[in-house]
């Protein structure tokens, strides 16, 4: 898949967006096209921007790996990053997550299948925060079928990832965006821009 920037309506580009800005990209009601758009946007964003993370509800972690390795993998893929740094860097977020140090170490030893959806949801946000991302790509499933109550997810995400630029991708006709006024709605220029 080529990773040229897709064409957006009204000449929108992601290049001069302010930190903490919120964008919602309308992908229409076709689930297959939505998946292709997310794949394309993620592939492009990873090439264009130094740090991009991703949030979803469906299968956020690899079941066969420990949570420590799951948190470490995206961070270490593009630059050398020691496994032992994950617990160290996670400690700064413990007050927000409501965990103690021993809770963290216990969770890092577990596999995703051993954890509740709420813990998975929090760990996913932690993984995103560890990347210190410029951009967060959000699948609409993160809002529609959240792993933990949506207000809790948003509160945590705003506290840990508030400085990043958010790009939500989904069917905006049916998606109720929290704090609607803060989101800038954007569209692709044509249906073929996901190729």
């Amino acid at each position, binding site marked *: 898949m080529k990773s040229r920037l897709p064409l957006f309506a009204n000449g929108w580009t992601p290049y001069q967006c302010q930190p903490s800005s919120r964008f919602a990209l309308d992908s229409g009601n076709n689930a297959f096209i939505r998946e292709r758009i997310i794949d394309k946007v993620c592939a492009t964003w990873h090439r264009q921007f130094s740090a991009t993370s*991703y949030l979803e509800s469906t299968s956020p972690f690899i*079941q*066969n790996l420990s949570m420590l390795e799951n948190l470490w993998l*995206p961070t270490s893929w593009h630059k050398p990053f020691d496994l032992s740094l994950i617990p160290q860097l996670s400690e700064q977020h413990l007050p927000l997550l409501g965990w103690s140090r021993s809770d963290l170490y216990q969770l890092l030893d577990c596999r995703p299948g051993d954890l509740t959806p709420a813990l998975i949801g929090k760990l996913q946000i932690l993984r995103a925060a560890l990347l210190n991302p410029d951009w967060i790509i959000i699948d609409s499933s993160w809002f529609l079928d959240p792993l933990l109550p949506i207000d809790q997810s948003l509160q945590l995400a705003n506290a840990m990832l508030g400085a990043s630029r958010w790009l939500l991708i989904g069917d905006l006709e049916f998606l109720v965006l929290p704090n609607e006024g803060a989101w800038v709605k954007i569209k692709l220029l044509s249906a073929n821009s996901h190729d």
Partner: protein
Amino acid sequence: MIQAMSLVFFRQLFFTGVQSAGIILLLAALSGGGLAIVCQSMLKLPAGVIFQVLSLFIIKIMGVSLTLLVISARSISAITTEIATVRVSGEARSLARLGVNPSVYFLLPRLAATSVSSIILYLYFVAIGLITGIVFAHRSLGFEGVIGFYPDLPLYDLISGVARAGIFGLGSVLCVFYFSSRKARTLPDIPLAASNGVFLTLIFMLVMEISYQLLMFALET
């Protein structure tokens, strides 16, 4: 990237190589010991001839076939299941969206580890098979007596065995990645993909071995 792939490599090496060592030990001992007993008690062959028969049989045929059979049964089915599961469950797609190339992460370390394990296990099989065979054939031989036979090892056959084991390691993982695991679309397809993967790698091994033996026969005649 290298760190993440190294972790997968060593984990796969442990699973495929280290954990198969016990069964390889058993098979090698049975092969070498059984053949030596037949040669000595039924055929009444002298020790030097028994070693020649053992080394040819184990290095040329049994070592490669039995080692690769164990790897197919143990590791290939597990690798196929894992790759099919991450595809079907959407984990591979999520990983790609996080910027991690799933083909590189899941395939390359397993290719390398299966190849290296195949080679090491083959050499291990040959060593155990020959030692057991000689000890069974001539129980009065001391350590120096057993080692004394080793300069007569057919080196060319050993090197070709190593090459075949390495090629099998590469080919089998590529087979399952490109042919078996991609057929799995839903969870019930996964066991089928795993058995299909084992079947494919066994066919690959048989084709490779038969082709090699026919080629050697043609070159010798």
